[in-house]
């Protein structure tokens, strides 16, 4: 009869936890959501020696205070979810810091196993770690693992299964010294007055947390009858002072244990440090970064090109094949609606994935942390923390994973501003509009125009950030403090997985919202029954003509207006809509001809249109993510209104300026 257990993977960030998780669970993993919050929950399963093991990957944290959402999730899962065993993934090359988390985990009273990961790096460095001694001192089994090579997994799971059988488990906790221990004892006694509370949370752990002034712990006892007794004890105590004492005590214990367990652990100047001197240097830092960014974008656009052409060819082929479907309405639904609409999204897959892959390589190698540091000074002057930087970069691929990447920003205002300005960064979806219109109306130098649009997006983002700081979200950005992990050679597998985590959101967008949107748009263009597809008489046409007066000052005709409205679903659809409405179906060449022939369109209007598409409201998927990440409709609505207002304003300025200059 197979046994079933649940284990949780905890650990500092950058210790190779995800790689280890993948090594354990292989492909049997899936992503869900932690209830009530926006952080994603990764879990998987593995079968080892007749036991079914469910593995939950907790967010990486340096400690288990209530300072950030990640930490609260991690510890709540351990306390409430009651996994059978918690595996702490420890980076063998930074033992001292990793052990800080160990001291806190051991207070939770759950069976613990340490996976001493990246053992290969430590050995290569010349470190000698005595695992047996370490296990003795900590009273926790220590297993050597190398996640990137899949070494030690079997031993790890053996230890896990062994530990899950031991019960009940006593909490091994540090003694905090003569001043602190008595207070803890008093608190524990007070807490025991409420058995309901102590059955849920280990009393000593709760006492320690309360003594540290942990807000989440305080929340947990507000409803308890022990509350008043606890408050009495706490009021006689300076939480800040005790917290510092306890942190010191933890480190004392660690520094006592460490030398006996590990030798030659700390290295002087390493190759990493020397590289950092160059890469973060005052004069070379930013140019190096800019050069690398150029390389990434150049590769993205050029290397993606043949693949995009291939997808386009397949799409055209399918569209032609679809015309043979009967009944006829189904043919247009599949051909124009599905293939056209969804196809226009899928074409950008190579573009987005290559960019995300390159970013993943930069991130996995450790460079991106340095880049954030280098850019921090600049970011600070805009009113953003250096950490906002990586989400903004990801935004050039797709805004959806970019906004999700803001989760590492702890300060609420910092995070909010970063989220709100992200839609101004030109994502992959807007590119077809730019390529088409710039190519048609600015044949001399389309590249420059497109580059200019990208820059405009960045400029608007920066100015908006300054505006928000000055008005609705005041304050200074958080001071920059980030770990610089040692440089590592990224493996193709890890970077591909990293890329896939982010890029798959784009595909889900295509399969989900856009599929539905494409069908709706098709329906609006095809009905009322009997009208010519996409003509002025269809619903789509009627909507366009009704809304067109709003856009008359910008010089947009009703076809463009409707396309903008449909672009609300996904900006890729703008081109597909234009194609439909100009009556040219899938043939891009014919669309070009039709656009050029249209007397309403000139260079100025084209430019205004492109700027409008660049800046106006975020697409539906992005809006959904903004809503999820901010947890508020108010800000989502704000970003929609603000974006559209800015877009309208700038497009108007361009139109008027164009008229003044003489109208080209």
């Amino acid at each position, binding site marked *: 009869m197979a046994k079933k257990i649940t284990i949780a993977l905890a650990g500092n960030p950058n210790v190779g936890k995800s790689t280890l998780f993948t090594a354990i669970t292989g492909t049997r993993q899936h992503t869900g959501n932690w209830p009530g919050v926006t952080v994603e929950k990764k879990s998987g399963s593995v079968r080892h020696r007749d036991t079914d093991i469910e593995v939950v990957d907790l967010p990486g944290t340096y400690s288990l205070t209530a300072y950030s959402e990640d930490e609260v999730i991690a510890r709540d899962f351990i306390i409430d979810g009651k996994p059978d065993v918690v595996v702490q993934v420890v980076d063998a090359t930074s033992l001292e*810091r990793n052990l800080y988390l160990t001291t806190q985990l051991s207070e939770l009273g759950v069976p613990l196993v340490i996976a001493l990961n990246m053992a290969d790096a430590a050995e290569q460095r010349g470190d000698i770690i005595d695992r047996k001694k370490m296990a003795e001192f900590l009273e926790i089994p220590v297993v050597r693992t190398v996640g990137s090579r899949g070494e030690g997994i079997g031993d790890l799971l053996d230890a896990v299964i062994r530990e899950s059988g031991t019960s009940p488990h006593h909490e091994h906790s540090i003694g905090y010294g003569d001043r602190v221990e008595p207070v803890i004892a008093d608190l524990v006694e007070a807490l025991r007055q409420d058995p309901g509370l102590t059955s849920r949370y280990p009393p000593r752990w709760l006492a320690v947390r309360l003594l540290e002034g942990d807000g989440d712990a305080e929340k947990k006892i507000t409803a308890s009858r022990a509350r008043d007794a606890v408050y009495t004890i706490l009021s006689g105590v300076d939480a800040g002072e005790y917290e510092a004492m306890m942190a010191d005590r933890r480190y004392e214990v660690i520094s006592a244990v460490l030398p006996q367990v590990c030798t030659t652990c700390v290295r002087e100047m390493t190759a990493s440090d020397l590289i950092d001197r160059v890469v973060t240097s005052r004069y070379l830092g930013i140019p190096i970064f800019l050069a690398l960014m150029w390389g990434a974008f150049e590769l993205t656009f050029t290397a993606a090109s043949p693949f995009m052409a291939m997808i386009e060819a397949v799409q055209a082929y399918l569209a032609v094949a679809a015309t043979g479907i009967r009944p006829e309405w189904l043919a247009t639904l599949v051909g124009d609606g599905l293939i056209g609409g969804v196809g226009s999204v899928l074409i950008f897959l190579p573009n987005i994935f290559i960019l995300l892959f390159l970013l993943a390589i930069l991130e996995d190698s450790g460079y991106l942390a340095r880049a954030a540091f280098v850019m921090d000074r600049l970011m600070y002057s805009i009113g953003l923390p250096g950490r906002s930087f990586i989400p903004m970069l990801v935004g050039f691929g797709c805004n959806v994973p970019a906004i999700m990447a803001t989760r590492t920003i702890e300060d609420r205002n910092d995070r909010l501003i970063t989220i709100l300005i992200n839609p101004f960064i030109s994502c992959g979806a807007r590119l077809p509009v730019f390529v088409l219109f710039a190519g048609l109306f600015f044949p001399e130098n389309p590249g420059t125009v497109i580059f200019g649009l990208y820059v405009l997006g960045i400029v608007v983002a920066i100015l908006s950030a300054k505006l928000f700081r000055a008005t609705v979200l005041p304050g200074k950005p958080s*001071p920059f403090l*980030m770990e610089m992990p040692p440089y590592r050679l990224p493996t193709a597998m890890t970077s591909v997985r990293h890329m896939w985590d982010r890029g798959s959101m784009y595909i889900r967008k295509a399969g989900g919202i856009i599929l539905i949107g494409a069908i709706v748009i098709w329906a609006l263009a095809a009905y009322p029954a009997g009208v010519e597809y996409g003509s002025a008489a269809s619903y789509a046409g009627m909507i366009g003509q009704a809304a067109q007066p709003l856009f008359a000052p910008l010089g947009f005709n009703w076809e463009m207006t409707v396309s903008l409205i449909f672009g609300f679903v996904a900006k890729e659809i703008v081109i597909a809509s234009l194609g439909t409405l100009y009556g040219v179906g899938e043939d891009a060449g014919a669309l070009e001809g039709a656009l050029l022939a249209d007397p309403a369109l000139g260079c100025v209007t084209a430019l205004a249109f492109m700027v409008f598409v660049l800046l106006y409201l975020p697409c539906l998927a992005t809006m959904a993510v903004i809503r999820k990440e901010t947890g508020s409709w108010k800000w989502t609505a704000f970003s929609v209104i603000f974006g559209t207002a800015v877009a309208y304003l700038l497009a108007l300025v361009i139109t008027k300026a164009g008229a003044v200059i003489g109208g080209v």
Partner: protein
Amino acid sequence: MTGLPLAFVPEGKKVTVSEVRAGPGMLRRLASMGLHLSSCVEVVCADRGSLIVSVTGCRYALSRGMALKVLVQEAGA
């Protein structure tokens, strides 16, 4: 006795932390990274106040504003 802000310590110097002027949340975060009273810090890269330091063998980057909040003294003082 307080000391010099970390921001002014030159490259290659080793110091010990004597005081941290920050709110409780930041203090906790620093502590969990190894930066607490009497911890040993070495400055690896320095540029006009913003630094990369080594603490317990790990590297951390601090902006000037952050480095000004950490007061240190000569190691061994």
